[in-house]
């Protein structure tokens, strides 16, 4: 590509930006910038001038009144990311403060409180257990007993805390002296994790969440890619997008381009081990290469050119520091560039692996705190650009230390404003091999790497949020190129047109300088369709609104030429995983505008989408139909209540089937046997010594969690303390050796069991036989775990506390439903009073424990009645799960 024979005039300065700035709401309007002699008619008497901005561009008009869903919402529930009100401190006083200059106040205390309530084991585990006896939670006065000296009444403290909570934000609040006294006493030792450390971590996390809310740069680049159909082939492209509840599934969905794009076949799907942040794609030699970035993993897939061919994963890399960028080379197959937040840039080629090009935790041109880095390819396949918030540099991969030049600097060189920062750089190779797009929060720049530092085009984009996504649609030679800019939080979409084209051979074939053509145009956002949707029940309306207003997460577009008709399809992905699409149709150039064209675009508030006017009933009809189906699918997905109102529950029908409760019509052989024995015993007036018939043997005790090779006493002690068995460890240490102790325990267990077996028999004579035998087995499990006085053997076997590092249960198990365990419902099932507690205990043990090993000792029968539905009940990634009730 030739260099323009003359460029638009501009001043060139060096140094930091001088212009004071800030977001200017209309800065992009009404300016030509500069003019240049050029254009056709050079030989005429008068020179003809062209402006840098304001030339006529192509005219694109939205075909529909709103964006239309492409895919049905996925079945799983979407977990909205935290909103400002979740982490900000809300009170009248603070609002006033915020209106001043103090900025937002994070509600640190509330979050710490949440942590203590949600994770008491992790927060107070061992000392809580040690002090258990010394805290009295009742309402009555403590009796003057022996315990009086060593027990304190906590109720008063709790009341004080409540009172404090009620007066929160009151400027005249004083700490109750009792609270102060208590916190003074125990601040240093009560907490499992030292309070200062915990608070630091929490505060850091809160700051992180808050800065993510203000500006989340992990989404830079966008997680949506469109793999266009091959030239001349069937109009079936492929949409690559993340989905699933945690956005950790990658879908390759074939999409047929019709009036409205339509999904074809079920998508190829890959489950990944992290949330997909970015999907980047490039086509080399007729094959698409798709790079996928999550925080700690990056992967690359190859999609063969022919339609319908399955994508193949090629390679995955893992990073220690979160990756912030992944771009795919448009020049060489299987080459990508990766940046991490530690300031490292790698050239990653699938054949040979990673090559580190640069490692610099500092920013390039001046100091900026952001660890965000970006890298992309340039016109030279061995030269990569790398960017941080302060600018762009190009490096030669063959000698990265020696060969580099500055491409863009936030400074006077590009006429930047103070405080301006690079948001997204993008190589515009498909439009022009040496051009680059750089967006900042205020402006967009087009750069030519042959003339570094001086932007060949600059325009203030006036978007409310920084453009994190950009998509280029190159025009044919001589036509303008289209660039789409997208913001995340506000879902803004802006269409720009620029030209870097030949004026034609007649004027000498020289290339003109880069020009912005036409006016920028706002496209529909996903949330924009809300006003067109039919009215719904308020709560459903709210859900739909929440879903549609989720921040955008990606952007893709394609040009479609169908004979004389040219149209543009724009896809937008939301954080909820929805993909919406809008079609823009190209109108022929219109130098003299029709007088009433304003009315062609619908004014907000009208809803032609669902009214299906006569003009093109077909298209609008299908759009409306799409919406209906999408809404229906959404409400179906929602019928399963959202996660935060979803109390983990056990289906009673599955726990005890009706047949179980009725008792079998024909008694089983076991029952018959038992009945016989009962009869016999009753007739003889004797008693049954052992309830087990024959083959029920006490199962072997599982291995205690002891690292091989006998660790030093300190680490065993710490392990024990961590697992919550500190007390037991102490006892063990003071009394017997482990082996002796186990033997003794086993013996004791057997005795207990026998004793309880007798008791249970006498107490539960009324209900059916089968049932009794089951429950008597169950009854062994509960109390031994839960009474702290007894050695907690079972807690070693079946259910170490959730925070234990040695056990990684695949998913936290929910607690049994309270309704199920209410004594009323148990009574309905004929479970005697004595057993109810035992059953409750058992169920809570089961709910707490990992699936492996699943049964407590001697539970042949228990398998019959407890459904093995761990997987069904486990709800992945519940951020704030309730602790199971421990039966008290």
């Amino acid at each position, binding site marked *: 590509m030739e*260099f323009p024979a003359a460029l638009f005039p501009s001043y060139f300065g060096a140094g930091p930006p001088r212009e004071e700035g800030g977001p*200017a709401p209309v800065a992009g309007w009404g300016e*030509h910038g500069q003019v240049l002699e050029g254009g056709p008619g050079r030989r005429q008497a008068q*020179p003809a001038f062209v402006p840098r901005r304001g030339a006529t561009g192509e005219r694109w008009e939205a075909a529909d009144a709103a964006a239309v869903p492409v895919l049905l919402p996925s079945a799983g529930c979407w977990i909205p990311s935290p909103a400002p009100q979740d982490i900000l401190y809300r009170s009248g006083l603070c609002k006033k403060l915020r209106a001043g200059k103090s900025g937002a106040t994070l509600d640190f205390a509330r979050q710490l409180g949440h942590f203590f309530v949600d994770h008491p084991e992790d927060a107070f585990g061992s000392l809580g257990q040690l002090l258990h006896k010394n805290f009295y939670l009742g309402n009555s006065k403590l009796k003057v007993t022996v315990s009086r000296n060593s027990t304190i009444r906590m109720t008063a403290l709790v009341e004080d805390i409540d009172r404090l909570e009620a007066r929160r934000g009151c400027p005249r609040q004083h700490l109750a002296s009792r609270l102060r006294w208590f916190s003074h006493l125990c601040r240093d030792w009560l907490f499992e994790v030292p309070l200062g450390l915990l608070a630091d971590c929490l505060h850091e996390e809160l700051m992180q969440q808050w800065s993510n809310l203000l500006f989340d740069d992990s989404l830079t680049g966008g997680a949506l890619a469109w793999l266009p159909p091959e030239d001349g082939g069937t109009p079936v492209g492929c949409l690559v997008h993340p989905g699933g509840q945690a956005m950790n599934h990658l879908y390759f969905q074939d999409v047929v381009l019709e009036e409205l794009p339509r999904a074809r076949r079920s998508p190829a799907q890959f489950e990944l081990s992290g949330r997909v942040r970015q999907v980047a794609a490039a086509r080399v030699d007729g094959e698409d290469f798709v790079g996928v970035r999550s925080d700690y993993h990056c992967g690359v897939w190859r999609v063969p050119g022919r339609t319908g061919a399955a994508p193949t994963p090629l390679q995955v890399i893992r990073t220690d520091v979160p990756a912030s960028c992944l771009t795919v080379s448009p020049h060489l197959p299987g080459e990508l560039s990766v940046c991490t937040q530690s300031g490292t840039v790698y050239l990653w080629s699938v054949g040979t692996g990673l090559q580190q090009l640069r490692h610099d935790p500092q920013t390039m041109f001046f100091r900026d705190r952001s660890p965000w880095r970006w890298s992309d390819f340039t*016109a030279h*396949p061995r030269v990569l650009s790398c960017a941080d918030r302060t600018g762009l540099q190009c490096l030669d991969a063959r000698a990265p230390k020696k060969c580099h030049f500055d491409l863009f600097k936030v400074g006077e060189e590009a006429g930047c404003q103070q405080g301006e920062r690079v948001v997204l750089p993008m190589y515009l190779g498909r439009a022009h091999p040496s051009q680059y797009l750089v967006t900042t929060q205020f402006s967009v720049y087009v750069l030519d790497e042959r003339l570094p530092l001086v932007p060949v085009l600059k325009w203030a984009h006036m978007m409310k949020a920084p453009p994190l996504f950009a998509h280029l649609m190159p025009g044919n030679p001589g036509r303008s190129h289209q660039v789409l800019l997208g913001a995340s939080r506000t879902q803004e979409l802006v269409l720009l047109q620029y030209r870097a084209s030949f004026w034609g051979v007649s004027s000498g074939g020289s290339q003109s300088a880069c020009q912005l053509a036409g006016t920028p145009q706002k496209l529909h956002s996903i949330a924009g369709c809300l006003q067109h949707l039919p009215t719904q029940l308020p709560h459903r309306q709210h859900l739909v609104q929440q879903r549609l207003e989720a921040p955008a997460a990606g952007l893709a577009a394609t040009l479609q030429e169908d004979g004389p008709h040219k149209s543009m399809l724009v896809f937008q992905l939301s954080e909820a995983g929805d993909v919406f699409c809008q079609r823009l149709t190209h109108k022929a150039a219109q130098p003299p505008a029709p007088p009433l064209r304003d009315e062609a675009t619908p004014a907000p508030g009208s809803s032609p989408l669902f009214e299906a006017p006569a003009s093109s009933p077909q298209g609008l009809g299908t759009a409306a139909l799409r919406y209906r189906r999408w809404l229906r699918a959404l409400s179906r997905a929602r019928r399963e209540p959202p996660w935060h109102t979803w109390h983990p529950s056990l289906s009673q029908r599955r726990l005890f089937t009706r047949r179980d409760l009725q008792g079998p019509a024909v008694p089983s052989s076991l029952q018959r046997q038992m009945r016989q024995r009962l009869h016999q015993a009753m007739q003889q007036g004797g008693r049954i010594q052992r309830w087990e018939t024959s083959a029920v043997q006490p199962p072997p005790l599982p291995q205690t969690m002891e690292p091989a090779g006998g660790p030093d006493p300190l680490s065993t002690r710490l392990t024990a303390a961590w697992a919550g068995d500190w007390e037991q460890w102490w006892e063990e240490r003071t009394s017997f050796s482990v082996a002796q102790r186990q033997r003794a325990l086993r013996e004791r267990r057997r005795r207990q069991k026998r004793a309880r077996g007798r008791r249970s028999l006498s107490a539960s004579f009324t209900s059916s036989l089968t049932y009794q035998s089951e429950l008597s087995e169950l009854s062994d499990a509960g109390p031994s775990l839960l009474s702290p006085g007894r050695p907690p053997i079972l807690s070693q076997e079946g259910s170490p506390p959730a925070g234990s590092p040695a056990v990684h249960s695949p998913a936290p198990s929910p607690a049994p439903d309270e309704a199920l365990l209410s004594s009323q419902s148990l009574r309905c099932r004929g479970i005697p009073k004595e057993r109810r507690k035992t059953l409750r205990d058992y169920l809570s043990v089961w709910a707490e424990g990992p699936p492996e090993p699943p049964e407590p000792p001697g539970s042949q029968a228990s398998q019959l009645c407890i459904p093995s539905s761990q997987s069904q009940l486990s709800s992945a990634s519940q951020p704030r799960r309730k602790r199971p009730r421990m039966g008290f």
Partner: protein
Amino acid sequence: SSHEHKLNFRKSKEACLSYIQDALLQKQWKRAAEFLTCYVESLEKDYSREHVGPSEMIWRIGTEILWHHSQSSMKEFNCFMEQMKTLGVKRYLKVCLEHVFHLLCNGQIDEAYQNLSLAESWRFGEQTAIQDKEMKLIEAYRGLLDYYSWSKQKNILLENGEDGFSDLAVEQEMHSYFRKAAVNLKEIIKIPGVWDVFVKCYVDLLEFYGDHNEARQVLNEYAYNSKFPANPNAHVYLYQFLKRQGESKKSLISALKILHDIVPSHELMIDFNTMLQKSKKRKKRRLGLEVIFAALDYAGWKENAKAWSCLARQVKQIVISEKHLDWIKQEWNSRKDWWPAFHFSRYLAKRNWQENKSLSYEKALVAGILLGKDCKYFKYVSHQGCKAQLKRFRMLKKFVNRHNPVYLRISG
């Protein structure tokens, strides 16, 4: 209270602005215009201390609307601009410039000239740095228009001169245009910046009056002053000037060498390569090979048949003479791990063959020499060429087969 009133007023102002913005972004010019008439009120109670005040907003929005509004006329536009000029002292020059730009783009050169002259004589207190820059630009654009007038007169004079008839009045007018243009253009090109148009015009003036030293100095300054951006055009203009002056090959080469160093992918590199290839000096020919290899590294040159034929010619020469194979070897060393995939894949062989046979011929020759006769690109193209019974492809096959040992020496 008045505070509340202020607050409410600000709020409604902001709302109004966002409506206007919305309308503009959806190209609803009429609607935007209606809102703008309401927004004008914000001028009355302008309490804002933001750096873009309401008067600037009205100027920007109004201009944009008048550009696109179906019922606007040039007269209305001029009228609006005059009003805007009086609205803010700080922005006077900027608005003037933009007004001039619009007039120029609409072919109203004379009106633009008048406006420029008017703006030039404007004085108001002490000028800020930005105003100073704007003033310089205004002067420069006036100089540019003077240059165009000069050039018009010159053409008239030249045409008349052919008829053997000279007009003294026209000539004098022309000289006066020259003086006016030269003064202003000379000023702006001293300041660091991109002044392609101004430099070109100024050099044209100087050359016409035979002041070649001054022209050379101006061009040298524009190309080599480190305060100026590394503008490839500056080097191109210098090179073209030297060529016009009939300078020696040596100085032309040295000018292009610098251009090669800053922009290896410049289109002049083909000329440079041809020039170097013809040279008798080994070093120059060596540089020529480097230049063409470097140019073909860039994606923009991938399908440039001319460049490939340059490379093919030089490589062929070297292979036939069997001298300086090490040049190729050295160039190839830093490229052998990525050129095959970048240039010589089977996919490209197919596409090049379909789209441009002569390109695929040149590339196949280079591929055959650099990668041997078993290379995918060469095999595909030579096979297709032989199938199509094209003589030169058969020759190509023979040539590569005969020189296959070269490949071993290059890659070894």
